[in-house]
């Protein structure tokens, strides 16, 4: 395969991936710090980007940072948390306008400098983070975690995965949990931060109109701090015996019922039959041509939305739809029929061909967005798969209906979650 990113390893072990292209109006920089998803550390990891964005040694408040970024033509900078399988990733990003469009002003050093400040130079007091920042951000994070409750669509998805993976790391919410926030203070969070920065695997991505050697040199200079031997990140555990399918109902004062169904596919990214699973998912619920859309929405008129999606790192699949409370049995019945039909190989040419085309098209489309290019590449790194989108397209093209039927036999329903009225 032809890698779109060139890869270098800095002296301190940071992986630097660069893709030079003038396709976009901006230059994008991303840092990913990988960590095992564990209850003991998940909330601390989640709190870090919140605390770090409050200020740095040279930009002591968020306001200082914002003023500076606005002067850099509204450069976007921030941090967030990603959850990929049972891996929690601390992400920092910076996006700046290509100097070509602002009369050639070179803002790269200034923007990389503030980026470095954000990640490596936090405001400190008495050997820890600034206490006021930590306490305020604990409160902000607490309310952010709680606000998932207001987003019933995602709440029903998250709750299904939580119930389904009760005793597995995957059940941990990407922003951690409220109970563990209480144990965090400025000192233990700072020690944990140092561990992340010094010991966790770190990937640095650059995508934009840059000279590779030049940008590599600038980054090497700014990020050449001493690091220790890297911790290894465990691979996601993905097999689990299912004894009996669970049904969990929760009651809230809502106007629409939200149905989620969680499955173990027993296949994940990197497996030979992963591409067959992608096609399976597309046929089942990957768009208007899918069985769920056609049957739950178009034929039965039960829902406005009905879809399925994969969690490719852990080999899970989720079906979601919003229905009237009284239609729970009917909807589950229709959905199960669709699952049985694919298992029996009842796949029309239309369903199959449309799915393959739609997957190929979305793979091609990733090349039109900097963040999607990086995200897809990151998935490869996480799962130890090196392939280009062209390789993926070839593999999708070689999937047959029978491959889909075969992969369907491995898929097991684990948990049904229903958000019902009170």
């Amino acid at each position, binding site marked *: 395969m032809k890698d779109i990113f060139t890869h270098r390893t800095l002296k301190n072990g940071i992986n630097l991936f660069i893709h030079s292209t003038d396709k*976009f*109006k*901006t230059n994008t920089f991303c840092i990913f710090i990988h960590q095992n998803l564990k209850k003991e550390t998940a909330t601390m990891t989640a709190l870090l980007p919140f605390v770090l964005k409050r200020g740095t040694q040279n930009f002591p*408040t*968020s*306001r200082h940072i*914002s*003023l500076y970024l*606005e*002067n*850099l*033509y*509204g*450069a*976007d900078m921030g941090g967030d948390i990603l959850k990929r399988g049972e891996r929690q990733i601390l992400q920092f990003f910076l996006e700046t*306008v*290509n100097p*070509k*469009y*602002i009369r050639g002003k070179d803002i790269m050093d200034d923007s990389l400098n503030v980026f470095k400040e954000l990640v490596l130079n936090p405001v400190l007091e008495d050997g820890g983070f600034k206490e006021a920042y930590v306490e*305020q951000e604990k*409160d*902000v994070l607490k*309310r952010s975690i*709680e*606000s998932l*409750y*207001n*987003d*019933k*669509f995602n709440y029903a998805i998250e709750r299904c995965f939580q119930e389904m993976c009760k005793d597995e790391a995957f059940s941990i919410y990407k922003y951690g949990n409220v109970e563990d926030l209480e144990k965090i203070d400025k000192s233990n969070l700072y020690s944990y931060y140092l561990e992340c920065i010094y010991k966790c695997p770190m990937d640095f991505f650059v995508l934009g109109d840059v000279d590779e050697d030049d940008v590599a040199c600038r980054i090497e200079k700014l990020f050449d701090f001493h690091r220790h031997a890297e911790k290894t990140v465990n691979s996601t555990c993905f097999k689990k015996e299912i004894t009996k399918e669970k049904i969990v109902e929760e009651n*809230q*004062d*809502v*106007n*629409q019922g939200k149905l989620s169904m969680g499955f173990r596919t027993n296949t994940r990214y990197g497996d030979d039959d992963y591409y067959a699973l992608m096609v399976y998912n597309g046929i089942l619920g990957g*768009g*208007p*041509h899918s069985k769920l*859309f056609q049957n739950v*929405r*178009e034929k039965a008129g*039960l*829902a*406005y*939305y009905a879809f399925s999606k994969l969690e490719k790192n852990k080999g899970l699949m989720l079906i979601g739809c*919003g229905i*009237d409370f009284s239609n729970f049995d009917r909807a589950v019945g229709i959905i199960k029929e669709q699952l049985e039909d694919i298992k029996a190989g009842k796949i029309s040419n*239309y369903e199959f061909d*449309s799915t393959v*085309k*739609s997957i*190929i*098209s*979305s793979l*091609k*489309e990733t*090349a*039109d*967005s900097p963040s999607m290019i990086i995200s897809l590449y990151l998935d490869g790194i996480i799962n130890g798969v090196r392939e280009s989108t062209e390789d993926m397209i070839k593999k999708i093209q070689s999937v047959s209906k029978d491959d889909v039927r075969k992969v369907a036999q491995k898929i097991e329903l684990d948990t049904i979650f229903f958000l019902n009225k009170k």
Partner: protein
Amino acid sequence: MDAFLGERLYSHKYNNGLTAFVLPKKNFNKVFAMYSTRYGSIDSEFIVPGTGEHLKVPEGIAHFLEHKMFEMEYGNVFDKFAELGASSNAFTNYTNTTYLFSATSFFEQNINLLMEFVETPYFTSESVEKEKGIITQELRMYEDEPEWQVLLNLLRCLYHNHPVRIDIGGTVDSIQKIDVDTLYKCYNTFYHPSNMILFVTGCIEPEKVFNLVEKQEAKKNMGVQPPIKRIYPEEPGFINTSASAIRLDVSEPMFLMGFKDTDVGYDGYELLKKELSIGILMEVLFGKSSEMYERLYEKGLIDDRFSFSYEGQKDYGFCTIGGETREPERLHEEILNSISKSRDKGISEEDFKRVKKKFLGDFIQGFNSVEFIATSFVSYYHKNIDIFDYLKALEDVKLEDVMRRLDSFFDFSRHAVSIVMPK
């Protein structure tokens, strides 16, 4: 047209009144196209061209019509797009209805299909009845979304009569009154090519698009249509009521306040300049670099979810400011105090220049995405604004313009507050 951020725009106007635009992006893999009519949820009363009939239609019909357009005599048009490897969609807002697709192959066939289906109404009573079930679920979904409810209630406070106070999708009751006959009347009034725009961007040659549109429009052979007469009720300059509070099953209160803009009645370049002036003003007052943001954040009244925006159309305009907060009343007071203080102090040249730089950068950043380009182009076009004037208008906005808005726009007698409280 001159190159703009390295882009060039091509356009062609057809005899029946349709205008097509193409913005090529050679090194992109996809083509993104929008076919859009200047017809939204607020166009609920009008004179049917030709017959002269005065019609008042059920709330939510523009959105209902959007759903039903996907149905053809041969079945569902989603299927045809899927066969061509494209994904299609549509949306309705207060002022327009837009159909779109995104594809990485069969570009010309997809454009043909987009035009063909939007130009072919096909409604049956049976399918209209079934759609009521689907849209009911769509409306129920929004009933559970506090962000949407808090905005709807704010608009009901700000407006007495203007249909912007009504939910785009209508209500579960109002959509029951929709029938085949009224759908056709709305279609025939608002889907004439002269009321529409085709915008295509991505890896495609302008000439190819213009030629195939020519053929498509020749097939239809539609004459010109006289201007559509839209009737909007008289809207007073003052607000309807100053506060709304409801309870929903949420984790903490949600707060949204808004000011009603009474400097309305014009569109085009002047509207763009107004939007930018108010946009810059709000960024200076409430943005992340503002003194207010820092103070309220420190007090725990706001966090990153705090946001603000201005929505300006020819006949109405309003801004929204708010987010999740523990103490909605206190936040309300603090925001009003900040506005008063800024009014006394004025706005510094430094703040003004810096925020302008941010606006410039944000706009350039947007041009990374064909979806952003198409969506902005089309929504501005419907307001008679040329998006390629954006940078010029940004240059044209002076500190005095922003200061003037600070005095006139934030009139406390024209503001209202909407709150969603936990149960």
